[in-house]
């Protein structure tokens, strides 16, 4: 008697839970799964628009062959996009980890700095950044002509004055400018790292102090392992936002093909190839991280 009633309660609980999730399930099927499946089908078909919607004509792998063998720039875009993916994600990760740790410490004015470092999230609308960047480039040209005007620190000049050879200073300037550019993607990761650092119990650091641990040891044996959850979250976030960014060359090309030439299937094939590669590579990366980096600390 009692048992049956309990099961009834559990079942009722299950149904209440399902009710809350139901709207999401409908939305997922309707707005994510169906479009995703459709775009996969488009990539194997010739798509024509008629009055009653789309007319499909099966052509198999033709579009995939086209983007790899005939499309002039797709492979280039793919490789450049992937290589910048694997260089910029670690840089963003490290930079925001360092900034997160620094901003987490107590010092006068840290609230002001935190406010500043979150600004990129507000300002990094593609449109606004494009405007500013193009303006800066124009200003740089005019300032070269007139020898004045506001500009970002001219890094090459500084290194030149330090007496470094031209080639070295240009290389250094390139890296520094890359880091400056990547700063724009650090807003959310910094906040996530600060939140993660706050959740580490202070007693751990106290214990380490009592045991005479150096700052270096404290970082590698407490802070970093305790941040493993946060790190995975940040990595996922950074990777995704890099992947879906509209100034990514592959996405940009696929969008141009779609908008200007109205070739749906080519665009879908381009995106699916990219999506597949990125998913596979990130799955591999996360497997390796999980297997060889995080496990050690657990």
């Amino acid at each position, binding site marked *: 008697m009692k048992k049956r009633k309990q099961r009834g309660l559990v079942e009722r609980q299950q149904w209440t839970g399902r009710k*809350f999730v139901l709207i999401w399930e409908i939305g997922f099927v309707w707005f*994510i799964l169906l479009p995703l499946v459709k*775009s996969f089908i488009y990539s194997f078909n010739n798509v024509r628009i008629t009055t009653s919607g789309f007319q499909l004509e099966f052509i198999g792998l033709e579009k995939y062959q086209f983007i790899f063998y005939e499309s002039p720039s797709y492979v280039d875009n793919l490789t450049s996009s992937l290589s910048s993916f694997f260089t910029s994600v670690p840089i963003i990760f490290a930079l925001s980890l360092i900034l997160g740790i620094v901003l987490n410490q107590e010092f006068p004015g840290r609230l002001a700095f*935190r406010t500043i470092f979150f600004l990129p999230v*507000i300002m990094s609308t593609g449109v606004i950044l494009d405007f500013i960047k193009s*303006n800066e480039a124009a200003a740089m040209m005019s300032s070269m002509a007139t020898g004045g005007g506001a500009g*970002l620190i001219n890094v090459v000049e500084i290194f030149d004055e330090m007496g470094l050879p031209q080639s070295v200073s240009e290389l250094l300037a390139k890296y520094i400018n890359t880091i400056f550019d990547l700063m724009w993607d650090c807003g959310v990761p910094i906040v996530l790292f600060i939140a993660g650092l706050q959740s580490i119990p202070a007693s751990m650091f106290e214990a380490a102090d009592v045991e005479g641990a150096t700052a270096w040891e404290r970082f590698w044996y407490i802070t970093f392992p305790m941040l493993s959850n*946060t790190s995975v979250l940040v990595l996922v976030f950074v990777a*995704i936002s890099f992947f879906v960014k509209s100034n990514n060359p592959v996405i940009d090309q696929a969008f141009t093909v779609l908008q200007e030439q109205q070739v749906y299937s080519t665009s879908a094939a381009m995106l699916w190839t990219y999506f597949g590669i990125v998913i596979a590579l990130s799955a591999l990366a996360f497997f390796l991280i999980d297997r060889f980096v995080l496990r050690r600390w657990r």
Partner: protein
Amino acid sequence: MSIQDNALEMERKNSLQLRRKKKAVHLIGLIARYIFLLLIGYVVLFQLFYMISYAFRPDEQLYDPAVVWLPRTWTFENFGTAFMALDYAGSLMTTVSYLMVSAVIEIVSCALVAYGLARFKFPEQKLIFALVLLTILVPPQMLSVASYVQFSHLDILGIVQSINKIFGTSWRINVIDTVWPFWLPSLFGVGIRSGLFIFIYRQFFSSLPRELEEAAWIDGAGSVRTFTNIIVPSSGSAVLTVSIFSILWHWNDYYQSSMYIETGKTLNLALDRMTTALKELEQKNTPNIQMSACFLVILPVLLLYMIAQRWFIRSIERSGIVG
């Protein structure tokens, strides 16, 4: 006696020296930290200063080599031109009615879904949570064509299609250029970055003590009432975090708006099309006008962030996103 005194004296001296050394190290660390932060902060602030510096600059000082940062005279004229070119009032209304409403809907619906995932146990729960995380991974560009077709032939469960088949008609529900391509996905918890918000909410709800809800259930509150009267009031920081992110990302949206909006324009679309608008107004397209337009576009969210940031970062710390 004197030996002891000596030892004491030595120790005091030593500890004094140690303290001084510690203080010096601390000071150096502090200075190094400020230099580091200022250097990197400069990169961020530079763009903002640049924007402001140009936005208030009169035309004749644009190419004046003597004017580096501060214009000699400040002018508001650029804002007037930018205001007209952006059609600011109209675009702001569009942004609010299309995107901000969508953000509010998303804030509510994601909380509901997350509550279901956090507090009730049912067999397929894990799978659903994994799928929620998957939605974060799918780039919107992959869905765009198919979604566009879906919104121009809106149909749920094939109802419209089967009616068409039965009666041989060919009518369709076209919601492109209305608010629905923004509101509908938000309503169903699959709007702009909804997956991330469901994740944030879920982490927070899971960390709340169960006793409160149990007390509410015993007092006869249903699950919805428990949610509105117990859960929502005690998750202020999670709600604030999600609200700010959702509003910001909706405000900054360009991709979705450029796809689904045809007649009206949001602020970002207006900014993108400003060159043509300026030509139509027979105005010059100079950097100072561009920058004041950019400034006008981010001004509302900038103000919002300035007001809310004090609570915001603290609430992220408390919302336990990162477990």
